[in-house]
């Protein structure tokens, strides 16, 4: 594609008429002044108020903005301890002691945007650019399946060479790839905002969750950090998931890149985004919320110099407050974080994580194990193997789940949300986590992980409702005898 054609593609990417119907008087749902006001008005909250807010979270009610603002303003260490404990309890009540595990698969790092914190930005000439061919996508998938993965998040830069046709073809290639008993059963994607027409294509292919992060919800900061390209349009991105839902993609995921602006503001932004999606789409808000922190990226000074970088202490706090603010939504902590941070923060409400992560384009099949900054969007904090992460999680009492049952039997969108909001999703999650964990232990695990995991399964069976236990035991036996993909 020549430069003129590429420029024409960029100029045609944003369709203002698909955003306008969602605006009120030209304004979007993020009111910066109101967020600043709420954060200012709710300083030094009384302990009784905090307890009342925690009780609301424990009954699975989404918090109102002033309540989240109050939590964000807590200064007392004892209160924070209480918040962490409650966040852990909320997660356990809704989802049980299971962590869904996936791997990211980067298909392309070509990008027409100029995000100042990202190594993929078009001006970064030190980044080695590449778009995987479909054969290369299959080889990457084979490498991931061979390690035991069942779920992927597939990532694309925003570029005409990785437009909707390429995205669709890669997803089909991934779903069609099989290695022995193994296959990818759920493909989630992280791609640029699309038109409603393009979202309909993604819906028909059968994607899992569609993920777009706003990066920062603060309008002025957003404009400063996204000077050119389709991504410069704040509202096009902000309503990406509204358009996806409009097209019938009913599992969508939000996130903010923490470190671009004040972390308290971003948590409020995530809450307002949740509220608006729920209001517009019959109670169906985000399926997951992500909270990546800015990490060093090659030739990208802002990634190390940002004045808003989030400390480890504040990171744990923001994760706990998100958990309490939206008690029923999945929360993803990734391998951006160092192992010790993941170990700690996973306990305050996370439901999903990645493992054996490589984010260089082609890195899984080409088996390069050292991180190469010029082939990656940023540098990872944790590159441990899937087996190692699973063993550690098991030692901490967490079942690793590769479950994809829900989205293959209609437990999606509004129905999933209705179960999650009642705090009943664990009734499906735990038995399904046990079944998929058992498959992993038999097919892929090291001897030590098999031992630790087997013990954990024995302990966790007793937490499954009594009437389900005999069936679960029968299915575990069937898996030992070679059956696969059994589910509730």
């Amino acid at each position, binding site marked *: 594609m020549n430069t003129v054609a590429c420029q024409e593609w960029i100029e045609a990417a944003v369709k203002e008429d698909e955003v306008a119907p969602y605006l009120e008087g030209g304004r979007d749902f993020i009111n910066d002044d109101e967020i600043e006001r709420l954060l200012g008005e709710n300083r030094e909250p009384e302990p009784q108020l905090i307890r009342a807010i925690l009780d609301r979270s424990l009954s699975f009610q989404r918090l109102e903005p002033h309540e989240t603002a109050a939590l964000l303003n807590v200064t007392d260490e004892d209160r924070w301890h209480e918040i962490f404990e409650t966040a852990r309890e909320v997660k356990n009540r809704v989802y049980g002691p299971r962590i869904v595990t996936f791997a990211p698969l980067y298909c392309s790092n070509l990008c027409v945007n100029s995000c100042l914190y990202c190594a993929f930005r078009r001006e970064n000439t030190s980044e080695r650019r590449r778009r995987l061919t479909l054969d290369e996508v299959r080889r990457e998938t084979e490498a991931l399946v061979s390690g035991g993965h069942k779920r992927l998040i597939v990532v694309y830069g925003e570029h005409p060479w990785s437009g909707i046709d390429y995205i669709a073809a890669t997803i089909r290639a991934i779903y069609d790839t099989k290695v022995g008993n193994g296959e990818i059963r759920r493909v989630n994607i992280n791609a640029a905002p699309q038109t409603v027409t393009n979202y309909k294509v993604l819906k028909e*292919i059968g994607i899992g969750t569609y993920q777009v992060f706003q990066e920062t919800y603060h309008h002025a900061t957003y404009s400063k950090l996204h000077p050119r390209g389709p991504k410069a349009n704040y509202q096009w991105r902000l309503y990406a998931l509204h358009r996806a839902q409009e097209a019938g993609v*009913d599992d969508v995921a939000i996130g903010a890149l923490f470190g671009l602006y004040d972390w308290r503001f971003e948590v409020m932004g995530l809450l307002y985004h949740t509220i608006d999606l729920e209001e517009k789409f019959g109670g169906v808000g985000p399926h997951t919320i992500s909270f990546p922190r800015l990490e060093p990226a090659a030739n990208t000074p802002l990634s190390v110099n940002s004045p808003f970088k989030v400390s480890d202490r504040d990171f744990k706090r923001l994760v706990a407050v998100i958990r309490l603010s939206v008690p029923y939504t999945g929360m993803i902590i990734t391998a951006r974080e160092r192992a010790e941070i993941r170990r700690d923060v996973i306990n305050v409400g996370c439901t999903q994580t990645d493992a054996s992560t490589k984010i260089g384009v082609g890195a899984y099949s080409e088996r390069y194990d050292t991180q190469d900054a010029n082939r990656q969007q940023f540098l990872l904090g944790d590159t441990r193997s899937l087996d190692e992460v699973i063993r550690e999680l098991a030692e901490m009492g967490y079942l690793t789940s590769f479950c994809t049952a829900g*989205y293959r039997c209609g437990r*999606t969108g509004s129905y999933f949300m209705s179960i999650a909001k*009642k705090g009943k999703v664990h009734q499906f999650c735990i038995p399904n986590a046990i079944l998929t964990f058992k498959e992993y232990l038999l097919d892929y695990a090291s001897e030590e992980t098999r031992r630790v995991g087997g013990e954990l399964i024995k302990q966790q069976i007793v937490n499954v409702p009594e009437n*389900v236990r005999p069936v679960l035991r029968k299915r575990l036996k069937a898996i030992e005898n070679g059956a696969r993909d059994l589910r509730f």
Partner: protein
Amino acid sequence: MDCVTRELSLVSALDAVSRLVDEAFGARLWFVEVLGRRWSYLAGEMGDQPAQSELTCIRLNGKFGLVSDAWGAISETERAKLIAFLEKFVTSRHGS
């Protein structure tokens, strides 16, 4: 069943079928849009607790399917009648 569903939208009609089947046979069933590997919820009552029996997933045509966690509670004859009706119904409403 035809007289119940005739005047209703697809989703309302399938909700009604789900209720009727539950009342008549004590079997939960729900309807989905088949999108490749994804079976996306469309209508019907699936409950909020896992069932004892295996999930049964049946494609009604290229676009729609049904899932039940108590399919065995319905006799074979009634199942055949139900499937025949539903295949015809969803196809007439939304094509194959």
